């Protein structure tokens, strides 16, 4: 396995995806110039290649003998990541070594055991139960005929929530998928992105009793074969393209920026891939600003670098800076160098966040509010569901916050609260995604409770 030179396989990904690495002190300005077409690899720029190799070598030295192990293990050697070995150092973080991710119950509590009465909202707003009994339900997209589709992670299901005789009913539409978190709906078709699998179910709303055989688009999308941080978030942009998350395949490691830590966009059939942002640890939510049409995305900060952070990010891709670098793994938050993966000038050329969204808070879904139901100061405010921390001794998040945008920056303010008891250090629910209904009300999914809450304004209690 060549590790020193530039002309090696590390920058290729199965002959499909390629990217010329940007000079480190400036983000890639244009996509057309940076990307090869149809798998043709463009020559690398010398400087960028050198500095990348340098940091890569340092990584290897730090990893010591692991380089040999990596080369020796067949399947991993073929993987395109720069260093699959996680470099986090929990001992140095001085955090409680027993912190670990919270499990999602595969069995949801009954409707009367949901934490609805704990939810607190600003005056005039009201929360009510919209649907329940869909364990692990997270992402939400709505079909043209009003079916709400919900994606999940570990549980492997896609739900269809329909209304019958005034009652809402959740049924398992698909099951046995590997973390089908990414959903999109267009022209009667449901797009389902599981880990490294892409399917399109045509005329789905006419076939809710038995999902039709899907059209498989996996080969076209040609996503990397690593699984960590690769449960998908996807959304169709104002340009009609499919925007797809490709997470970093570790907590903290040297990723190959040509492969991991990106947002990409494709034609809906999976052709015409372009990288629209890179240097992202893991975004699992994005939306477009209603006025500027810029893409805003949440990004979850690394773990095992202390209870205080680095804080999660709310980012935007400024106009004419598509393809730009958001800093991972070298630079976090508002310019915090990584303690475990180091290089000179780690933040040079990095696009700084529009706002920080709190330590380990796990901002997932984001939605700019464009409805008429909420008071007008909420117009174009972004609502962000914060799933809540695991890698933090004092729990944090478990809420929905607002991001008020001004001049490309944002300020964060609380909105939906009450699901975290700071005194007892326990939580009652995990907001995951937000969805705006046609009537202007807003839905919030709670993955832990397998429920969706409807937030309205000005309606009778």
């Amino acid at each position: 396995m060549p590790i020193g030179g530039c002309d090696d396989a590390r920058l290729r990904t199965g002959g499909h995806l390629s990217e010329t690495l940007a000079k480190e002190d400036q983000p890639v300005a244009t996509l057309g110039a940076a990307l090869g077409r149809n798998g043709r690899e463009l020559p690398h720029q010398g400087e960028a290649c050198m500095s990348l190799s340098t940091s890569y070598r340092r990584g290897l030295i730090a990893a010591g003998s692991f380089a040999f192990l990596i080369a020796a293990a067949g399947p991993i050697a073929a993987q395109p990541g720069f260093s699959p070995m996680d470099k986090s150092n929990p001992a140095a973080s001085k955090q409680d070594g027993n912190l670990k991710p919270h499990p999602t119950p595969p069995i949801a509590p009954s409707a009367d055991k949901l934490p609805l009465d704990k939810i607190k909202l600003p005056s005039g707003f009201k929360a009510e139960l919209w649907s329940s009994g869909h364990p692990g339900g997270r992402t939400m997209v709505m079909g043209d005929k009003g079916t709400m589709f919900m994606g999940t992670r570990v549980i492997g299901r896609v739900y269809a929530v329909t209304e019958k005789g005034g009652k809402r009913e959740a049924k398992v539409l698909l099951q046995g998928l590997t973390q089908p978190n990414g959903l999109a709906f267009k022209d009667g078709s449901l797009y389902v992105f599981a880990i490294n699998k892409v399917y399109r179910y045509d005329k789905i709303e006419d076939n809710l009793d038995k999902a039709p055989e899907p059209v498989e688009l996996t080969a076209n999308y040609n996503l990397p074969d690593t699984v960590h941080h690769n449960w998908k978030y996807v959304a169709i942009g104002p340009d009609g393209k499919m925007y797809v998350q490709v997470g970093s395949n570790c907590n903290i490691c040297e990723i190959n920026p040509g492969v991991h830590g990106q947002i990409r966009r494709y034609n809906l059939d999976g052709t015409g891939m372009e990288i629209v942002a890179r240097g992202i640890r893991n975004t699992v939510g994005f939306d477009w600003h209603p006025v500027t049409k810029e893409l805003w995305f949440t990004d979850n900060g690394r773990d095992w670098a202390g209870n205080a952070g680095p804080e999660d990010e709310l980012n935007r891709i400024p106009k004419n800076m598509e393809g730009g670098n958001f800093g991972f793994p070298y630079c976090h938050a508002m310019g915090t160098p990584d303690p475990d993966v180091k290089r000179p000038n780690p933040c040079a050329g990095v696009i700084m966040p529009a706002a920080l969204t709190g330590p380990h808070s796990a901002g997932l879904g984001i939605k700019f509010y464009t409805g008429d139901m909420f008071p007008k100061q909420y117009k174009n405010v972004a609502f962000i569901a914060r799933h809540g921390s695991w890698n933090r001794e004092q729990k944090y998040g478990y809420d929905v916050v607002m991001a008020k945008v001004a001049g490309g920056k944002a300020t964060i303010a609380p909105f939906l609260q009450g699901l975290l008891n700071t005194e007892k250090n326990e939580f009652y629910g995990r907001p995951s995604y937000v969805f705006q209904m046609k009537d202007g009300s807003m839905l919030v999914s709670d993955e832990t409770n397998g429920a969706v809450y409807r937030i309205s304004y000005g309606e009778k209690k």
Partner: protein
Amino acid sequence: MIDIVVNWRRPLAFVLAAAFVCASQFHAGDALAQSGALAEKIQLCSACHGEDGNSKLEKIPSLAGQPAFYTLNQLFLMREGVRKVEAMAPIVKDLKDDDLTNLSQHFAALAPKRSDEAVDAALAKKGAEIATQRRCSSCHLPSLAGQEQMPRLARQRIDYLVETLKSYRDSPRPGADTAMSAAIAGATDADLTALAHYAASL
């Protein structure tokens, strides 16, 4: 469903044969479907996983002392077809949510014992070092007793652990946090064997 990841990609004929043999003694899934009694369901599990939840059969995992959440999760995922284990499919297919909960709690309460496989002390020592490097304890606890969705590794069968670790590394086994595939990335077969001996020795 199409998205089937065969996590026992090289299912050993022996495992399946053994499992089917033990399962057939109790008429496999039929027995479960027709019987409401928890005791009968437990008896069916015990045929392969051991009377006291400690397996004596090659590559069949011990369930004794597993965190209830872990067992519940795995039973659920096998029932749904996310995690494919052929021998288990007919057994779990008709289990109700309550059955999953009750079975999980039953096995969680049993005492884990070492299997009769020989633990190599040198390998176990090497495994302990690798476990430190790879920070196994940050999820599985320093005792490797597991917690919630993370399985107990301590006193688990060596042959089962080696097989499972390989399936995480080579064809990422679904139904677990994907962090596991990152945690094990780049490990050699020798590393995995050492880890298994270490866990079994505890």
